[in-house]
């Protein structure tokens, strides 16, 4: 079943099609395919109603052993384990109750393995090539970096997967994004994906599974690939993925849930066949030359409203642009590098892995956060936090005047007390600059971790290459 080469004489298949075909439990004319789910990730915010639905219908979780829960969206990132508000506490208690009742493993606050759901899956080695992974969160596409088919679902679908371990899905189209060349110094995976979305806009990926490929993708670490795949949803794609290779395998080797011994060898044999066939056809292809990319910064209220940091706030081309400029309080023609900021957030499932923290620390080492700026680092997981502390990165951040927090989603979406005040402007390594996303009236500029670090020390958006 899990052998991925296409039969001789048959048309070549894309990576996404191979993953899809290997998980079809049932197919019937006029119906969506019934796909099997290898791993279901659960968190406190989008699951309570799903568990309640199960309880009311007398159903139980079919495969608690293929389900993993953590607390991330609501958790406090300072001041101990107690959430600030009653509703958050209740939501987390309910997740714990539901997991206990259904036998689902849970990494709750205080656990050594707690963290953002899309950070802990990979670091535990649970996210592996060839799998179908779902979660009630749109950034589930992150796991596609391992050559998995991974996508976000709604709460009703969470209930369906809890009950049946399956999901009816209509076949989707295939897109290829080929990133050739070599990334210049100071330009990161985040800039690849921001540059891409700047070109495509925020809906071109709709109805498609995307494969990222080409030499610049191959050269990325797993952390970088996760950053790219993470933001697939920001241009509308259902999922994004990268074919696994030696980078993937060496990341996975020895992780707690990775196969061991003979099983590792068997897994490798299967994983090595996981790539698009030479003659596979895509419904569309987008090509990007990485060697011409610059650090990118968003200026508007969606991730497609983005420009190179050397650029200026553009003239509005639509009502959406006009609204965005009003909300962001920006004038066309302003140099992006002149925009003063109040806050810096280094965190989120997009950019809070160890490599991200290293890249940010590299920029701030020996420097200090600008006196007008309040800056914080929120590691993606408790393990990332520990690893960073083992390397002494926490000392670098703290010496520079950053707040060093505990793991969680934090100010990416501001469900805990980490929010912007109205009018505050934030350099953020997260994924969404929607109105009010980081706090009602707050203004978000998305950028890479080194760019956010550079903004922290200079007090304004700045081309990080000037500091390297």
């Amino acid at each position, binding site marked *: 079943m*899990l052998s991925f080469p296409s039969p001789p004489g048959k048309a070549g298949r894309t990576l996404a099609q191979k993953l899809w075909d290997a998980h079809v439990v049932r197919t019937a004319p006029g119906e969506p395919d019934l796909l*099997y789910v290898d791993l279901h990730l659960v968190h406190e915010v*989008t699951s309570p109603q799903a568990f309640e639905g199960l309880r009311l219908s007398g159903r139980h979780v079919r495969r608690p052993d293929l389900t993993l829960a953590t607390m991330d969206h609501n958790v406090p990132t300072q001041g101990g384990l107690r959430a600030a508000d009653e509703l958050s506490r209740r939501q987390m208690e309910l997740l714990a109750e539901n997991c206990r009742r259904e036998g689902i493993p849970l990494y709750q606050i205080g656990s050594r393995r707690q963290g953002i759901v899309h950070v802990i899956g990979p670091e535990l080695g649970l996210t592996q090539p060839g799998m179908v992974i779902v979660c009630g969160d*749109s950034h589930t596409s992150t796991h596609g970096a391992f050559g998995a088919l991974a996508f976000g679902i709604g*709460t009703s679908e969470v209930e369906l997967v809890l*009950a049946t371990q399956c999901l009816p899905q*209509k076949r989707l189209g295939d897109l290829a994004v080929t990133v050739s060349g070599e990334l210049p110094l100071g330009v990161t995976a985040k800039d690849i994906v921001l540059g891409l979305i700047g070109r495509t806009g925020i809906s071109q990926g709709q109805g498609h599974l995307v494969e990222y490929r080409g030499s610049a993708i191959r050269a990325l670490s797993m952390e970088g690939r996760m950053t790219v795949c993470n933001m697939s949803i920001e241009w509308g794609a259902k999922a994004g993925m990268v074919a696994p290779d030696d980078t993937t395998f060496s990341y996975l080797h020895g992780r707690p849930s990775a196969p061991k011994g003979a099983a590792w060898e068997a897994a490798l044999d299967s994983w090595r066949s996981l790539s698009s066939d030479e003659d596979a056809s895509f419904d569309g292809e987008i090509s990007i030359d990485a060697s011409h990319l610059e650090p990118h910064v968003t200026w508007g209220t969606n991730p497609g409203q983005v420009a190179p940091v050397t650029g200026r706030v553009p003239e509005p081309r639509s009502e959406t642009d006009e609204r965005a400029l009003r909300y962001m309080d920006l004038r066309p023609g302003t140099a992006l590098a002149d925009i003063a900021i109040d806050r810096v957030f280094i965190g989120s499932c997009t950019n809070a892995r160890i490599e991200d923290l290293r890249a940010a620390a590299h920029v701030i080492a020996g420097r200090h956060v600008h006196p007008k700026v309040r800056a914080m680092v929120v590691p993606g997981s408790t393990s990332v936090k520990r690893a960073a502390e083992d390397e002494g990165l926490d000392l670098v951040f703290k010496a520079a005047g950053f707040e060093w927090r505990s793991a969680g989603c934090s100010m990416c979406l501001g*469900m805990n007390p980490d929010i912007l005040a109205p009018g505050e402007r934030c350099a953020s390594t997260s994924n969404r600059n929607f109105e009010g996303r980081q706090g009602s009236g707050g203004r978000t500029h998305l950028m890479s971790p080194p760019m956010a670090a550079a903004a922290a020390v200079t007090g304004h958006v700045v081309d990080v290459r000037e500091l390297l």
Partner: protein
Amino acid sequence: MEPVSRVSGRMAPLDRADVDTDQIIPKQFLKRIERTGYGPFLFFDWRAGGDFVLDKPEHAGASVLVTGTNFGCGSSREHAPWALHDFGFKAIIAPSFADIFLANCYKTGLLAVTLPERQVRHLMDLVSEDPTVQVTVDLVKQEVRGEGFSYRFEFDSFARDCLLGGLDEIALVERHTAEIGAFESRRQEWLPAVK
């Protein structure tokens, strides 16, 4: 789920593209553990700003939301269709919807219908001229109609059957339990399980 076949009523126009689910229902309301009661918080920040189109008296009680392209982009929160439904919208018409939002609408019993930009514009013009104009979104005939016009729409056939029949999708999948079991017995042993 209650069967859904057609929605008739007045329209409310939200003439904006790329409306994301963070706007539809901001995060602070995602801490609730119920499926209902989100209506008062729909478009919370936009309504707090005053003069928001949905709060205009002439659109009170509208059951069909007419809006721009890529509606419902961003977060997967099903609270978005819950809030729209709870507020009183039973159908939404737009040139396109984000994938996860659309799937969530099907599960919520909210009729999310795609029409070409030109036809959506016509509906916006109609309601701007006369907020009392009536429209019917008919899932059986797959058409949006009103006085002097009828627009055919495409709709996912499986989702249509589920909505028209008020079917419990979990029960539908459970019919195939034997096939699911057979699939499970073929899975590779080295695939990870959570300890």
